[in-house]
């Protein structure tokens, strides 16, 4: 009896179907490279492509550099030293992640522009009229500033966990060898945290390449904006597929570099014994400095924009009808919750498949779905639309048969948006579920089957309850990401379907910054709560 064929059952079939569905749209991008080029493409290639590459890479390079400096220094301070406010800062410094960069962008623009609080104060209180170009942040350096503020937590979070759990013996032995703090930082901390720094910074890089909101609002030409422009401005889907393919090429190039830099090592926190790094208590000036430094970062990356948003909400209270806001909130929550639920269910099926089928491919295939998270939203949007239009064409006879006279059914439905979310965010949910499966192993499952209980019942009675933590944290992470998502939602939503994020973005684009504040504050609030819940879950898990 064939051992692999014997494993073919509902799980396997379901899992393979899901994996295929996650992949199909990307195929349309790859095939799009080979379609014949239009005049637009010739023009783009000749005059524009270099610019897109230049500006995208400039943004990526400097943001990566600054997020490493800030993220690593914060991680080091928090992991090694004790100073006033440390335990608050430890998690507060993650909170900037709850502010989507495009909201941060228009909020800061609002703070520093001519009518903003800074220039107004200078004019009215001090009678200084500064050169307005000094306060102009709608340019490349401004975008780097915004990305750095709201993306550094990725580097901070991953590096801090690594340093607090895994570095104790190395750092202590360096100390006993008589090394001072700076020397330890340069010669021990930086080299040993290389892998986690690269892990964090590659998330930052992918976020920057994915971003549409900030660059669009600031009027910077990058790949993301170019894809939208050729698609909607020129109506040339073929050329935008070619642009998308070029962007995908850059992403794959960056992922390969990441692999090489990491030296093939996966960062693993779980394998070695966890011994926390004992804290060194800072006194006097250094304690004041540490508190000030963390406080300044926390203020500009979270406190200031949130206070400004609150101020605008109060100023405009009643201007945006409450009923309208409620509709967007409901749309946002429904679509995010529905997609997150589907992602978790799919992850459970694929994760279980990968756990029980002892075959190389069963381990490898799900890992490939991680690509979905690496591919920028604009690319996925192009891919999903192409696929759905092809699907509608294919199903046209069916529509006719059941009496629908429109040729476009699926490609104008919410179904398309949800599929795109699933492709883009599957990896986030799957990571969480996979580590949950790893943690419980297969013994409980085997024990249940030996008691005569079927596979399906075992799954619901044993696996699912034991993985509650992983399921909740996976759901929360996906939910928040979808809540903040901009490019996919803008392109793929059905006509007149608005979410908090699209509404905030549209108001901001129309320079109605104040009206945008309500929706923005709701996004930030919900995300911040989710991040706090996640943090609590993570902390309680080792018990």
């Amino acid at each position, binding site marked *: *009896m064939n*051992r692999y064929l*014997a494993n073919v059952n509902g799980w396997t079939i379901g899992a393979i179907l899901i994996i295929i569905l996650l992949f199909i749209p990307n195929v349309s991008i790859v095939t799009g490279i080979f379609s014949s080029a239009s005049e637009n493409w010739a023009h783009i290639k000749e005059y524009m492509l270099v610019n897109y590459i230049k500006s995208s890479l400039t943004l990526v390079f400097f943001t990566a550099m600054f997020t490493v400096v800030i993220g690593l220094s914060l991680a080091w301070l928090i992991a090694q030293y004790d100073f006033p406010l440390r335990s608050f800062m430890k998690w507060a410094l993650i909170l900037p992640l709850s502010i989507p960069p495009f909201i941060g962008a228009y909020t800061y623009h609002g703070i520093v522009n001519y009518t903003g609080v800074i220039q107004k104060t200078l004019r009215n209180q001090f009678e200084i009229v500064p050169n307005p170009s000094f306060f102009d942040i709608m340019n490349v350096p401004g975008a780097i500033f915004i990305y750095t503020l709201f993306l550094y937590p990725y580097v901070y979070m991953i590096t801090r966990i690594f340093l607090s759990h895994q570095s104790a013996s190395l750092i202590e032995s360096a100390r006993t060898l008589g090394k001072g703090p700076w020397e330890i930082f340069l010669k021990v901390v930086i080299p040993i945290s290389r892998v986690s720094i690269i892990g964090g910074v590659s998330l930052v890089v992918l976020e920057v390449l994915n971003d549409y909101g900030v660059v669009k609002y600031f009027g910077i030409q990058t790949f993301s904006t170019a894809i939208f422009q050729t698609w909607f401005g020129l109506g040339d889907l073929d050329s935008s597929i070619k642009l998308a393919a070029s962007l995908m090429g850059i992403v794959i190039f960056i992922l390969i570099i990441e692999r090489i830099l990491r030296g093939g090592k996966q960062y693993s926190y779980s394998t070695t014994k966890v011994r926390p790094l004992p804290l060194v208590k800072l006194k006097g000036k250094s304690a004041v400095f540490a508190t000030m430094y963390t406080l300044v970062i926390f203020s500009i990356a979270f406190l200031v924009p949130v206070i400004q948003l609150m101020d605008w909400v109060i100023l405009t209270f009643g201007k945006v009808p409450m009923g309208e806001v409620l509709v967007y909130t409901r749309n946002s929550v429904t679509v995010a919750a529905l997609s997150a639920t589907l992602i978790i269910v799919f992850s459970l099926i694929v994760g279980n498949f990968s756990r029980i089928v*002892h*075959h190389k491919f069963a381990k490898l295939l799900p890992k490939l779905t991680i690509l979905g998270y690496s591919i920028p939203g604009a690319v996925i949007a192009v891919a999903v639309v192409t696929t759905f239009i092809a699907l509608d064409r294919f199903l046209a006879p069916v529509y006719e048969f059941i009496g629908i006279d429109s040729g476009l059914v699926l490609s104008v439905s919410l179904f398309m948006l949800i599929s795109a979310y699933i492709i883009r965010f599957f990896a986030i949910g799957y990571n969480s579920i996979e580590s949950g499966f790893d943690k419980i192993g297969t*013994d*409980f499952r*085997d*024990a*249940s*089957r*030996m*008691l*005569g*209980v*079927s*596979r399906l019942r075992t799954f619901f*009675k*044993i696996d699912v*309850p*034991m993985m509650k933590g992983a399921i909740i944290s996976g759901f929360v992470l996906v939910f928040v990401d979808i809540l903040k998502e901009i490019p996919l939602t803008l392109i793929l939503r059905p006509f007149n379907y608005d979410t908090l994020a699209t509404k905030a973005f549209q108001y901001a684009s129309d320079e109605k910054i104040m009206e945008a504040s309500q929706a923005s504050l709701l996004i930030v609030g919900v995300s911040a709560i989710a991040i706090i819940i996640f943090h609590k879950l993570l902390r309680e898990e080792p018990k």
Partner: protein
Amino acid sequence: MFIDIQDLSFTYSNSLTKAVNCISFTIEKGEVISILGRSGSGKSTILRLIAGLEMPDEGSFTLNGKKIMDDRTFIQPEKRGIGMVFQDYALFPHMNVEENILFGLSKMSRKDKKRRVNEVLELVELEGFEKRYPHQLSGGQQQRVALARAIAPEPELILLDEPFSNLDADLQVKIREDLRRILKKANTTAVFVTHNINDAHALADRILKIKDGKIDKIGRPCDLLGSTSELPNTGEVIFEELLPV
């Protein structure tokens, strides 16, 4: 013959050598068999093959006249009517003792289930522990719950993987006696894995000695290991120390 296993072979998918290599043996009803062998010799793998948790490269297995597996048959583990006690017990942490035992009793009326739970708990001398959760039990108590859970559905065969490995020496001796009493009282056919020669001696009707995935020797404890008097009766002696490599 109650149990008949012929030419059982198995290779792990990520390995080239056979973990179990052409093993054949038979078991009578009510017999307690011990599989003895050093670490890595393939003991657990044999149990997992009998349980149906792994699928053999070749071999056949009949249980009480019923074909469980051969070239074209493979009955899934949940349909085999075989109970198993895992090395780390695998008690479901989110269920209390009663729920753990009830979990395997699906095809009974509620009243019968309740009665069966009381019966097996009495057998393992754990009455009154129904509402405790696994983490609120000592190692020995967990072990007995695992045994009670495996016995409750009245399996035709029960498999035990290193049932004493997580216990301290005093408890091992006590539990060992309990186990023999419980198995004999319920007239259960059992196969248990150990690398401890004293366990095998005290518990088994027959011993199957495994070396590198093959059967080395098979026979009654006194034939294989000599009489009890030759064994040192203080402390625990393990297999490796007694048998020359």
